């Protein structure tokens, strides 16, 4: 026989029951009871410390698992989940079949759960917790099905609930029968809002783990699959499925997330991004191909889902006489960038763009290859090196006359005699970026372009001014080649 079990949490110095399982509740224990009282009543009670953070993590994991039923899952801590199944129930042949499937799977996985389907989140909440298990209510009959449920089903604050109980209002139906203005005056707008939400009269914003998207495809298998070639075929089929819908509606997507749902409830997620929104399945499948190798099928995979993100209108491309011979970015460079970005990471592919700053390190910004180009051109008037060292390297330089370029310097252990020099180009700190009073003359850099006897051209600078507090230092910042 299973021992009664309860979780204990300290509440203002008193250890109280945080939760009790069915066996413990049958013996008369209830959450909120003092732990000492509970143990006195039921000496064989097994206890453990409550772990709300762990509960929340488990709930989020369960929410991720539920993505196989609908992409829109909102955790409702501490112990609830909302699924927006609009447009998804037909995949199971109806809302009842879907609810049964969900709850049967949870039960099989050892998760005791109750569920209900209703037209509003509030009504579903009330029915799942206080109504008959597995109720499916049609949209429009919320008032009827919730009338006999206790007012505690309305998700009210403790004070409001206590106030209702004091006045003998124990059923939702009794509240509905009262005049609205009186209700609002006596119990506050929050009570009225919760009531309206339960009855489907007021909208409710749920915090979905990911925003609900209509761009969702699902494939379920009669037999679990695990062979790599099967995974590849499934990836191809499901991508083609979603891409056909994208094409029919004239849209393209910038990101595709493929999830393989395993028999043991875990899911393996793969995601690929496109630099240009697309809807041709073959290149997308090719991006998935290297990721499929890392999928661990476990005991088998029973379903696959694909979600398209960053969906935007995409016009059908037309070939005109002018562009006949040219290769459009969608065919050539676009897929190349996608392949690189998905293999190396998006930060490793970029296009440089000028930025209005005279500080050399800041004069370039990296942009994604297909980002719209900003106005502005390179400042070609001043010499800039081809290689800019990530951090300037200190050099020993000998400059006999202040404000003159050095006559020789030592870099990487080698002495270089300066044959020709240009400069200085004085670059001061961008004082407007600094807090007032923080700028100092030691941050002034005097840049020289120098050429040594072999013809190698360097970009060196002197930080600080002569006659300052600290003697100026010389640095090498770039190579002209």
């Amino acid at each position, binding site marked *: 026989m299973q021992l009664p079990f309860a979780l204990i949490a300290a509440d203002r110095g008193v250890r109280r029951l945080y939760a009790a399982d069915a066996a413990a509740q049958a013996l008369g224990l209830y959450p909120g009871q003092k732990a000492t009282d509970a143990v006195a009543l039921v000496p064989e009670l097994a206890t453990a410390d409550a772990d709300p953070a762990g509960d929340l993590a488990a709930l989020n994991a369960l929410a991720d698992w539920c993505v196989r039923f609908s992409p829109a899952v909102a955790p409702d801590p501490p112990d609830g989940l909302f699924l927006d199944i609009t447009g998804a129930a037909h995949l199971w042949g109806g809302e009842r079949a879907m609810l049964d499937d969900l709850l049967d799977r949870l039960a099989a996985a050892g998760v005791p759960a109750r569920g209900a389907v209703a037209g509003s989140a509030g009504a579903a909440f009330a029915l799942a917790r206080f109504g008959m298990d597995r109720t499916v209510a049609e949209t429009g009959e919320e008032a009827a099905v919730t009338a006999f449920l206790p007012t505690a089903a309305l998700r009210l604050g403790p004070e409001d609930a206590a106030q209702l109980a004091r006045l003998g209002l124990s059923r939702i139906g009794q509240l509905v029968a009262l005049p609205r203005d009186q209700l609002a005056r006596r119990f506050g707008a929050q009570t009225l809002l919760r009531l309206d939400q339960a009855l489907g009269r007021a909208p409710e914003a749920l915090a979905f783990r990911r925003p609900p998207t209509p761009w969702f495809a699902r494939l379920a298998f009669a037999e679990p699959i695990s062979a790599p070639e099967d995974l590849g075929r499934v990836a191809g089929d499901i991508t083609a499925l979603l891409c056909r819908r994208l094409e029919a509606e004239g849209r393209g997507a910038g990101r595709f997330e493929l999830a393989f749902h395993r028999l043991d409830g875990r899911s393996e997620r793969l995601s690929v991004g496109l630099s240009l929104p697309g809807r041709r399945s073959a290149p997308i499948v090719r991006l998935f191909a290297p990721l499929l190798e890392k999928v661990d099928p476990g005991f088998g995979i029973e379903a696959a889902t694909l979600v398209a993100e960053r969906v935007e209108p995409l016009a059908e491309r037309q070939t005109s006489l002018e562009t006949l011979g040219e290769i459009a970015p969608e065919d*050539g460079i676009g897929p*190349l960038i996608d392949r690189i970005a998905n293999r190396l990471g998006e930060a490793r592919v970029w296009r440089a763009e000028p930025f209005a700053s005279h500080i050399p390190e800041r004069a370039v910004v990296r942009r994604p290859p297909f980002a719209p180009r900003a106005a502005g051109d390179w400042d070609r008037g001043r010499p*800039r090196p081809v290689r800019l060292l990530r951090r300037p390297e200190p050099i020993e330089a000998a400059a006999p006359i202040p404000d003159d370029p050095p006559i020789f310097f030592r870099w990487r252990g080698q002495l270089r005699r300066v044959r020709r020099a240009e400069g200085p180009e004085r670059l001061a700190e961008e004082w407007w970026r600094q807090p007032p009073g923080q700028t100092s003359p030691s941050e002034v850099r005097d840049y020289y372009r120098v050429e040594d006897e072999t013809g*190698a051209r360097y970009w060196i600078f002197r930080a600080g001014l002569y006659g300052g507090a600290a003697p100026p230092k010389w640095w090498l910042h770039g190579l002209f080649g």
Partner: protein
Amino acid sequence: MPLREVRLAQARAQIAALASAPASSGEVLAFGDARVDGRLPGGGLTLGCWHELAGEGLELETAAAPAAFAACLARPMARRGEIVWVLRRDDLYAPGLAGLGFPAERLIQVCARDEAEALAVIEDALRTPGVWAVFGEAEGVGLVEGRRLQLACERGSAAGFILRRRPYGGRPLRTAGSAAATRWRIAAAPSEPAPGETGLGPPRWRVALERCRGGRTGAWLMEAWEDQDAAHPFRVVAELADRGLAAEAPLRRAG
């Protein structure tokens, strides 16, 4: 055995077809000077092939002169299509390229994590239609990788420029032979400002063509044209003796 001989003949024909001059598009990038173009097959640098550029001394680590030279070289092509530059260390400075007349804002830069990844990206980019030139920084290209690059070039008709570059403090890599169409050694040369001007003149390079399939080797002193809209990016200042570069380098390293 007649069947065996037929097969042998077939295999020989296949080998001959593979070994013959690369089936490129035939388009060339001319230097605009008969002293250089005359040494190169087809009168210029063949597109649809890959070319190797290396510096010398410290330049083997920084690869600044080969980068500047290659950017000038590919300038006429950059206006026609996409250009990809595959880096091992991201120290390429776009304003510097722009200063050489290269449309740096159109350049797609990729930073690879290791040698194998860099070569894979270079090959992939060369294969892509619409890409005109690929610059790749790599330590060395072996015969097998070189052959793969060549096949990729032919398929996409792009030109590849491999800039030899080894990690800082690394040992020089010895590669046995190379599948490159040409191999160049680029070193900076002292510039000459125009008479009456101070400072530095336009950049100059000592350019040695060390290896050239179907052509002859040579060495020249080249200068970048100040006018960046010129038809050809270089002005050949003088032709150098071939041996001069090789003899000079070790002496300098000692000093």
